[in-house]
């Protein structure tokens, strides 16, 4: 039975033995509950309950002890190494240079016992890559100090101080963009979110919570149904139409107001390699986007916005920001010229490129998948009424849809950036700097393999954009060519970095 070897047993340290005590104590509450349930209610049955408690603890304790004994960690100037696991073993190695953050936390009980939790974070996932639960407070501080010292010579620490633009410059704030109130209103007008519905649903549930259920029931059931039955067909139609129109209008107005509240005084400043964004009326948002940390750029629009010449520019940065901010909008709504101005000046690219199309057979593939969905819908509806067979008339429309979507889907790699254009109704142009490449995947389904096609995914440190950074239905050879070019651009960038 071959198992993993560790470099030297002596170097490895165990967690603090007080962890056992801590775990035992924290497990008592969860042991009491089954004891209480089984033992019955009266304290007269004290003997039975304490027996159950003991039994549960007897089961839990070996597990606690085993996990304690099978957990060890070691740190040296190259990496932090953790070996854990009783039956299934896990050996994790984290190079020191990759550690971005060391957090030490203590809750009340841990403080009393002198224990601390150490969380080690690297780039990417928010969840800590390693958690030491629990070491002595002193050991935790020692560990953090050691890691900091070991990193003091490395590039990583330098890159955490963001300014890459030349330390000698005195950072001066530069106005990038101020969103005019006119544009904010237009943005609200073009959003078409079903605000009244959402607001109505929210109001409804709040009223329910505060015990207005009876009144609601009364209104909804008795009176209304009696009245409804009294109406004729036309009257009903009129009432319904008017009702819907009122809902739409109020939704629209509400949306405009909410948008004004959200983006009031939207303002971007550039300083020291970062874009500082501020906006909001009653609730203000204030955040900074480090340009060097931006992973993905997205310019979005839809047919209605496009009619008015409006686009939005959003970015996604590595890990931490995405959790809190989601999409960071740099331009919630503006003209294409303004977008291009910003992207060219601050990020060095423009989305106006010569996009290449993917394989033409993609049109057929899309059409077939739409047909299947639509066909199933018609088939299901036909159970109700064969009249729905007339829906088949719309099939040619599906083909046109497929063709149009195919036309919009394009890509190109140019000047170290990958551009992907996509979408007919939700239109987007995604830009990924080759240097942000983390991983890439070329995948082919059974059907694609038969046709010699593949999908090309690029993964960056951005969390939300995974699904957007895909090129569909490329000829297989082209996919590999693209990868080769990506590799080349990536290597070139790293060479330049080293040269610095």
């Amino acid at each position: 039975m071959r198992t993993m070897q560790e470099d030297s047993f002596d170097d490895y340290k165990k967690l603090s033995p007080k962890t056992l005590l801590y775990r035992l104590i924290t497990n008592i509450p969860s042991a009491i509950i089954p004891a209480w349930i089984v033992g019955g209610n009266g304290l007269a049955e004290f003997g039975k309950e304490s027996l159950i408690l003991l039994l549960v603890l007897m089961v839990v304790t070996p597990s606690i002890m085993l996990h304690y004994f099978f957990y060890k960690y070691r740190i040296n100037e190259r990496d932090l190494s953790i070996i854990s696991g009783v039956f299934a073993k896990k050996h994790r190695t984290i190079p020191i240079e990759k550690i971005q953050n060391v957090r030490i936390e203590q809750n009340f009980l841990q403080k009393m016992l002198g224990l601390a939790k150490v969380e080690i974070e690297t780039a990417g996932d928010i969840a800590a890559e390693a958690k030491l639960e629990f070491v002595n407070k002193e050991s935790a501080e020692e560990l953090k100090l050691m890691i900091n010292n070991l990193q003091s010579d490395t590039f990583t620490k330098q890159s955490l101080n963001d300014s890459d633009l030349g330390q000698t410059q005195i950072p001066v704030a530069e106005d990038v963009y101020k969103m005019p109130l006119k544009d904010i209103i237009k943005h609200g007008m073009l959003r078409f979110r079903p605000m009244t519905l959402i607001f109505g649903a929210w109001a409804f549930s709040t009223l329910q919570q505060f015990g207005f259920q009876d009144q609601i029931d009364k209104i909804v059931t008795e009176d209304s149904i009696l009245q409804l039955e009294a109406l004729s067909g036309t009257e009903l139609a009129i009432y319904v139409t008017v009702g819907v129109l009122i809902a739409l209008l109020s939704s629209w107005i509400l949306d405009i107001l909410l948008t004004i509240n959200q983006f009031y005084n939207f303002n971007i400043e550039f300083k020291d390699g970062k874009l500082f964004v501020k906006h909001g009326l009653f609730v203000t948002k204030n955040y900074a986007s480090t340009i060097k940390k931006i992973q993905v750029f997205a310019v979005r629009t839809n047919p209605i916005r496009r009619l008015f010449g409006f686009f939005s520019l959003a970015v996604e940065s590595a890990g931490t920001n995405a959790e809190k901010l989601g999409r960071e909008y740099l331009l919630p709504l503006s003209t294409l010229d303004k977008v291009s101005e910003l992207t060219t000046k601050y990020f060095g690219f423009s989305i106006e490129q010569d996009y290449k199309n993917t394989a033409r057979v993609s049109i057929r593939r899309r059409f077939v998948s739409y047909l299947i969905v639509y066909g199933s819908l018609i088939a299901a509806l036909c159970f109700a009424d064969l009249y729905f067979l007339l829906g088949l008339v719309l099939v040619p429309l599906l083909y046109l849809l497929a063709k149009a979507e195919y036309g919009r889907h394009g890509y190109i790699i140019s000047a170290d950036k990958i551009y992907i254009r996509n979408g007919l109704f939700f239109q987007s142009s995604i830009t990924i700097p080759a240097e942000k490449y983390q991983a890439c995947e070329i995948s082919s389904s059974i059907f694609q393999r038969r046709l010699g096609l593949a999908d090309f995914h690029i993964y960056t440190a951005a969390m939300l954009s995974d699904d957007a950074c895909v090129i569909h239905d490329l000829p297989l050879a082209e996919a590999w060519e693209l990868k080769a070019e990506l590799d080349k651009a990536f290597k070139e960038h790293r060479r330049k970095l080293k040269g610095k």
Partner: protein
Amino acid sequence: MNKLNSDIKLIWAFGYLAQAIVIGAILFVSEITFASEMFEEISSIGFVVPSIITVLLLIRAGVLPFLHYKIWAFEIKDDEICIERGLLVRRNTSIPVVRIQHIDVNQGIFDRMFGLSRLILFTAGTKRADLRIPGLPVEYAEAVRDRLKNLIVEDVV
């Protein structure tokens, strides 16, 4: 491209077998409990569906490991690591060595019996951007890990 250690087929088969047994047990037990509540006696028809499903799962346990093994391949170069896998959807994933954030070498219970391990290379991307290679002899996985550790450079995300 290199193949995985052939013992991985057995490990996979055990996994599928365990699933087949568990699901089969659940199906049969629920069949018995529900059937006895709804009907007077348990007819043999009720058992057809659970039996078919269990048989299919057992066939899966016997066949899939071979198919997966045929496709699974990996390559460890000095600048990047690639893997190829997938039956229905064939996936070819690669990561540059400099993007590796940390490395796991794990052994499940069955892995230990055969002296195999699973190498996991994490990048700064989401879970989908991680590379997981099962069925590697422990010494080999550890040697790869040690070599990669030296190749990983300080990195800017």
